[in-house]
């Protein structure tokens, strides 16, 4: 008991995380100064907020009493675009990221290939979806095709990195056993690596499918097709009940995807 003082015989709690008193207090002081500076630089316009409250209330009402019917054809079109974009982009992304992931695993590929693949992964991961979408829309024109390319590109960085890390973590004794039978490199991948990483690869692909759907709702804002464009239009027109309907559908689809991917993962493993 470090905190028992002899006079009061009272137990005081030892400090958490940071042991040194001086460092702890200087961190607290620094944080306080930053907070004051940061909050004071936020300009809040109370009149505008007050004015917006009525609109906010209308939005809450729109969310509680959503209007699915009056813009149904637009909403349907948006969701069809989003879902088809999501699936094709995930499949294309997985197909491309498997060879890149294998190439980026240090234990099974030569250094030159390793470096090239790691560069591709770093490039794909450091650029955000929205920025990539802006560039692809400028190159390929508006519409879901640019969205498809964006999501595929983002999938590559995510999946290839996690797959490569997974391959680096595999049980080496199995590769050794397969190698001892005189197997070629492709046989080595097929019989020693693939069975070990397949369940996780499927799990990751499903997770990425889920992420891609959520992202597809966003990249529409910059013109890359999908439900985001519909949502943006609905909010611009102040049709909060239609926007509420779209948001509820997004939440339901994400929930459904999360539950079903849990089942598929259990079934695969």
């Amino acid at each position, binding site marked *: 008991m470090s905190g028992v003082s002899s006079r009061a015989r009272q137990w005081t709690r030892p400090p*958490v*995380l940071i042991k040194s008193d001086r460092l702890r207090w200087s961190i607290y002081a620094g944080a306080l100064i*930053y907070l004051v500076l*940061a*909050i004071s*630089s*936020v*300009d*809040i*316009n109370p009149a*505008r*907020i007050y*004015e*917006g*409250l009525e*609109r*906010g209330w209308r*939005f809450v009402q729109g969310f509680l009493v959503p209007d699915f019917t009056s813009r149904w054809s637009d909403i349907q079109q948006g969701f*069809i*675009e989003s*879902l*088809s*974009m999501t*699936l*094709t982009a995930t*499949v294309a992304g997985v197909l491309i990221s498997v060879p890149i992931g294998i190439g980026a695993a240090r234990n099974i590929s030569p250094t030159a290939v390793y470096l090239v693949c790691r560069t591709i992964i770093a490039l794909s991961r*450091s*650029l*955000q979806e*929205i*920025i990539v979408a*802006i*560039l692809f829309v*400028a*190159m*390929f*024109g508006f*519409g*879901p*095709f640019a969205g*498809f390319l964006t999501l595929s590109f983002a999938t590559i960085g995510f999946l290839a990195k996690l797959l490569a890390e997974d391959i680096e973590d595999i049980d080496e004794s199995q590769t050794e056993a397969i190698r001892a039978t005189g197997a070629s490199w492709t046989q080595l991948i097929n019989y020693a690596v693939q069975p070990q990483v397949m369940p996780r690869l499927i799990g990751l692909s499903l997770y990425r499918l889920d992420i891609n759907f*959520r*992202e597809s*709702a*966003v990249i529409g*804002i*910059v013109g890359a097709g999908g439900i*985001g464009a519909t*949502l*943006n239009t609905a*909010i611009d027109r*102040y049709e909060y009940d239609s*926007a509420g309907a779209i*948001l509820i559908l*997004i*939440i339901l689809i*994400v*929930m459904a995807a*999360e539950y079903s991917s849990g089942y598929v993962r259990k079934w695969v493993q």
Partner: protein
Amino acid sequence: MPVIVRGNGKTWQKRASARQWSIWFGWLLLAALTVYCWQVMTKDTIWAFVQDAPRQAADLASRMVPPRWSYIDKLLWPLWDTINIATLGTLLGILFAVPVAFMAARNTTPSRTLVRPVALFIIVASRSINSLIWALLLVAVIGPGVLAGILAIGFRSIGFVAKLLYEAIEEIDETQVEAISATGASRAQIIDYAIVPQVLPAFCGISVFRWDINIRESTILGLVGAGGIGLQLQASLNVLAWPQVTLIFLVILATVFVSEWVSAKVRQAII
């Protein structure tokens, strides 16, 4: 290990044939669905534009370099705003996420039938809506500016932090809770002395991780008017000032890189 008699010899196969066929059928179904989706998606695609893309890309690249370096002094203030949006938004999110997490965890929730479903719904709703969409809504409601960005980041962070935190709370060592409650501690004291010390490192890790993600997301919130460096991006895109766009991309990349480095260092120090 199924062995199949084929002709006069036995052949080893990886799987029994019924399972083999069902797996094969599953892949066929996936392939068919993908092809169908591809057709639906590309129905309205104008292929002339796609064929034209390499030329467009070259054109764009020639416009984008060199970046307009002198624009940097107009970016410093928005950058400060961006960092504030991310930091204050994360703090706001944490503030709401902690009670939600305690309400959602099976072992600390006040009521499993009433409170827990509500907390789980808050988590799902906040998680499935991207911060850019939150910003879109909030800009419409409370007007453009940094405040909308902070609230958007905060709302999005609630679900993320609360989900990871409640999972951490559910995984704690129950014997410590038992030991504290054996001393006659109240509910609040049990949470304070038995649960909080166990989840604190995980909580700090999650918060820093979310802060890092929020820096990333707050750089683009300005596209819908929610303040930060994204406003400058939107303004430059609208007037097709590609050299400025390049510089903004570089600044965003550098910021993201620094925040990732900071978060990795802090998490290393904590865990």
